[in-house]
């Protein structure tokens, strides 16, 4: 259990490093891969729904700090994403890279869609244009990475 916690902590640190340092370096048109969602997917497939829900919630809370007006929304979406992917553990054949990449892409897409939908309802943000100009490219990019 302690080894798992250490591994998850290490992954989280890598994800933060990726988001803050590597992401901006490899971004194009302000679109960068979602390293945090990748970590949630990895934890979900390795440890299951329980660990992924908690990791997703914690990652979401950290993301929410930077946007107080939508406080709780990242936590909600990331917890749901972690739980959903965790439930798929043991039901997918992950030998193929395409499957893993596709899973990441779908996870990012679902998370961003849910976030944008609820966010547009709460604070009136635009939904349609960012969905096509940002959400879809970001999910494909994350899946490729």
């Amino acid at each position: 259990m302690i080894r798992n916690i250490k591994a998850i902590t290490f992954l989280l640190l890598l994800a933060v490093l990726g988001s803050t340092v590597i992401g901006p370096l490899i971004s194009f048109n302000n679109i960068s891969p979602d390293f945090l969602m990748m970590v949630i997917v990895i934890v979900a497939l390795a440890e299951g729904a329980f660990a992924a829900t908690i990791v997703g919630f914690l990652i979401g809370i950290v993301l929410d700090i930077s946007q107080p007006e939508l406080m709780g929304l990242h936590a909600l979406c990331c917890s749901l994403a972690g739980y959903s992917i965790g439930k798929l553990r043991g039901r997918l054949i992950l030998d193929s890279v395409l499957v893993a990449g596709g899973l990441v892409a779908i996870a990012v897409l679902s998370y961003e869609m849910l976030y944008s939908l609820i966010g547009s309802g709460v604070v009136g943000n635009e939904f349609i244009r960012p969905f096509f100009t940002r959400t879809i490219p970001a999910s494909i990019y994350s899946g490729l990475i």
Partner: protein
Amino acid sequence: MPLSQNSKSTTSSTLTLGICLFISLVLLVLPLERKVIVADTLSDILTKPYVTVYNFITDIGKVNRINAELKAEIIEFKMNSVSVERVARERNMLRESIGLTEQGSLELIPCEIRQRKLTADARLVQLRCPVAPQWKEYQPVVSVDGLFGRVFRITAPNEAWVELLTSPDISIGCELSRTGLLGVLQPIAGQFELSLIGRDEDVKVGDIIVTSGVIESNNSSSMNSSSMPRGIPVGTVVEVNSPPDRIFKSILVEPAASFNKLDVVFLVSGSGDWFLKSDEQGMDNDQEY
């Protein structure tokens, strides 16, 4: 995996999801002010340790750099001190050869500022020295930057009132370190003016003003000045005008010392001249003789 373990795991993950969703929804529906408070608190808890460590690491780098700079400055000061001692020795030899008295060396005695007194006639601070020095009336007091004031009244073996340079009735004999022109520095209307310098003399903005070692008296009936060691930094020329209706220049001076910071100052004891670094004097050392 046995069925009971499966259902336990499903229950625990569902319960966890429920708790996380509940907390997220509670945060989402909070008023904005409360959200900001929560965000600030979480930010402090989550990021403070990393920020503290990062600041500590950068501070170490800064301290190392400052340490290296200070060491270099100390070496430079030591070398300048050796040079100054040699110049003082040579000057004393010359003075002795032409029958003048030998000049001693100056000593700086650190003093603490205890209180301030601001009246219409004077700006005074009370100094306290850890050891009882040889007080003399009108003895100069300097800060790390330059002339701060002069001894006004001795009240105890190790305490005295010092008149600041900003006192209305003060006048200090000064000279321009670059050209040696003599003048009198006085505070006038919140500024410092160097007077008695001819309209046609060479004075530039940026010239450094030092004490001349010459006694100057102002218009008051009593002599309220005395000879200060020559060369103590007083200020820098910031404005020079030559009014057509006056025979002297109008020279405004920015004082070197700060009079608002209450810090350690130094009583100048002994006789002799205050030597500036050779590149600040604006003329060769040979020209002193």
